[in-house]
């Protein structure tokens, strides 16, 4: 009933908009592809869609979900979607390396939610300890942040174990550690075992990548910069409102529609963690606002990854992977 009402309200707002503003008729259709299934960690985009922020910005947005067997990345380069949520900066560096004309235009998570978890009653108590644990990690993690864990913190390759987004192997072994999102997996493990696991956030140990970065094609940046700007601004507003949580029921309903496995408890936990850990709002974002990119951080992360052996020194210019045209600490300060 609530959903029906909110849909009605939304529809009425849209109607008045169509009647009131002529330019709303010419709303730009854009598609946003996600890097994962609908989840609170992508809530800001759903918020902007659900509460009409995108519509107010003259955007008719459709969202294409990702998932464990979905790779949305090629769709952006080939022009089938207009915006893409990227997991971290590495793939943006790879795009530069491969000559793919896409760039990061905003960085929503200032701190990557990626974490390592171990059992509360297991033998591994510290970050140094957990390097000795058998580590459940999927292919993507092995090819990205594990390389850094290995080079910067000496996590041995021999400890890697397969991970397929199932908790079972972890629950089965008290000595195991696993990868996870700090906003989700601790809760799932608590639901399964009754105890909160030990959690180490990679960002606390020097992993400096932005996460949930927004990428788009260079041709859009060059030919429709105002459209890109509108999309970024609306998404920032969406994120602010989603984190605030006072009026996010419509966004949460959309998330649950797209991904019925998500529960209200998980959504509440995730939002609480995003706020508590300042995942979106700490650092530069505290002063310059959500989504901000700082070039020094991009360069530093590239240097770290070069040390981890992912790139040859000077192979690419990391600043080519991003543009500060739409959102940067300097711009925000001068505003």
């Amino acid at each position, binding site marked *: 009933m609530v959903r029906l009402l909110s849909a009605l309200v939304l529809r009425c707002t849209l109607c008045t908009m169509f009647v009131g503003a002529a330019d709303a008729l010419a709303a730009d259709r854009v598609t946003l592809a996600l890097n994962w299934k609908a989840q609170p960690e992508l809530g800001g985009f759903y918020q902007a869609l659900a509460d009409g922020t995108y519509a107010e910005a003259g955007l008719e947005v459709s969202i294409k979900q990702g998932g464990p*067997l979905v*790779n949305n*990345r*090629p769709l952006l*380069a*080939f022009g089938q979607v207009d915006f893409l949520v990227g997991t971290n900066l*590495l*793939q943006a560096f*790879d*795009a530069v*390396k*491969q*000559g*793919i004309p896409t760039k990061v235009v905003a960085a929503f998570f200032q701190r990557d939610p990626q974490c390592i978890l171990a059992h509360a009653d297991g033998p591994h108590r510290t970050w140094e300890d957990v390097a000795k644990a*058998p580590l*459940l990690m*999927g*292919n*993507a993690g*092995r*090819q*990205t942040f594990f390389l850094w864990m290995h080079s910067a913190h000496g996590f041995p*390759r*021999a400890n*890697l*174990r*397969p*991970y*397929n987004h*199932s908790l*079972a*192997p972890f629950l*089965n072994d008290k000595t195991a550690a696993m990868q996870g999102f700090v906003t989700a997996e601790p809760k799932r493990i608590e639901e399964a075992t009754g105890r909160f696991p030990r959690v180490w956030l990679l960002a606390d140990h020097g992993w400096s990548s932005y996460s949930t970065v927004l990428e788009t094609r260079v041709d859009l940046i060059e030919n429709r910069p105002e459209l890109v700007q509108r999309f970024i601004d609306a998404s920032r507003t969406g994120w602010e409102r989603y984190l605030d949580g006072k009026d996010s029921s419509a966004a949460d309903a959309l998330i649950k529609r797209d991904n019925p496995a998500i529960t209200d408890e998980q959504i509440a936990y995730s939002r609480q963690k995003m706020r508590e850990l300042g995942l979106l709002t700490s650092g530069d974002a505290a002063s310059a606002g959500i989504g901000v990119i700082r070039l020094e951080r991009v360069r530093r992360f590239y240097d770290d990854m070069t040390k981890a052996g992912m790139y040859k020194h000077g192979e690419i210019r990391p600043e080519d992977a991003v543009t500060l045209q739409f959102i940067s600490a300097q711009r925000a300060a001068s505003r």
Partner: protein
Amino acid sequence: MSSGLSFTGACVGNAVTGWRQVSDLGLNSEATPPPAPAPRLLRALGSLAPGALAIVLLAGWEIAVRVADVPQYMLPAPSAIGATLVAEWDALRPAWAVTLMTMAVALLAAIILGVPSAALLASSRLVERMVFPYAVMLQVTPLVAVAPFIVLLIGWQRVWWAQLACSWIVAFFPILSNTTIGFRSADRGLCDLFQLYHASPWQRLRLLLAPSALPYFLAGLKVSTNLALVGAVVAEFVVGAQVDNPGLASTIFESQLRSDAPTMFAALALISVTGVMAYAATHGFSFLLLRRWHDSALVSQP
């Protein structure tokens, strides 16, 4: 019992006359003139045709990519893929070896377990009815769904064995089902003949059952060989890479993740070459075994 005996007795006559008929037929077919042999030149050209088609296709691909100016990240040209193969050979070769090894061992295991199981299933309708549903379950269960379970069963310390098990599951069924039908298709008349002459079980197996099952087994083998390759690659995707010895699936996964199309196509090229080689090998093997006596492998004599 007495009716069974008289049935056997009736069959003996049939079997003997049937046997003679078969050999008569064989003589007759030899008596008919074979079709005119193709000229030597034409046959030489024929043996070059597959290579020529490959060259035409690759050249077409190369030209299309260059003319349409397709970006390399979308579709690399064969020349770029070849260059990547050479440049990345030190990384690709060990990965290829791992995939080949998984494929070969899985196929071998499918044969070693498939043929005796087929003999068992063929020995009794009851056993077949009891066991076959499980064989089918094994075949239709999506690997993606059971892979984590297999890893748990086998133990995460032995990832390669889990990959092997997945690859084996895919390769096992065609051999099992084909060979079962093969054992079943031994000529009834000859069965009775062997019984009449008190052939030992070994003679029965060696001279009657094995030859009649062989063409069916070989047909299953052709399917299983390439399924074992597919299985070896897919298994690595779903089970996860081995830490020390990643195979070609890891190469593909990593190059997809890193938007590195040339490397991905280089890995795919290696898989394709493996498949074509395995295809040629099983067909050659099958031809060698069947050419003297089985209709499917008979060629017109020049």
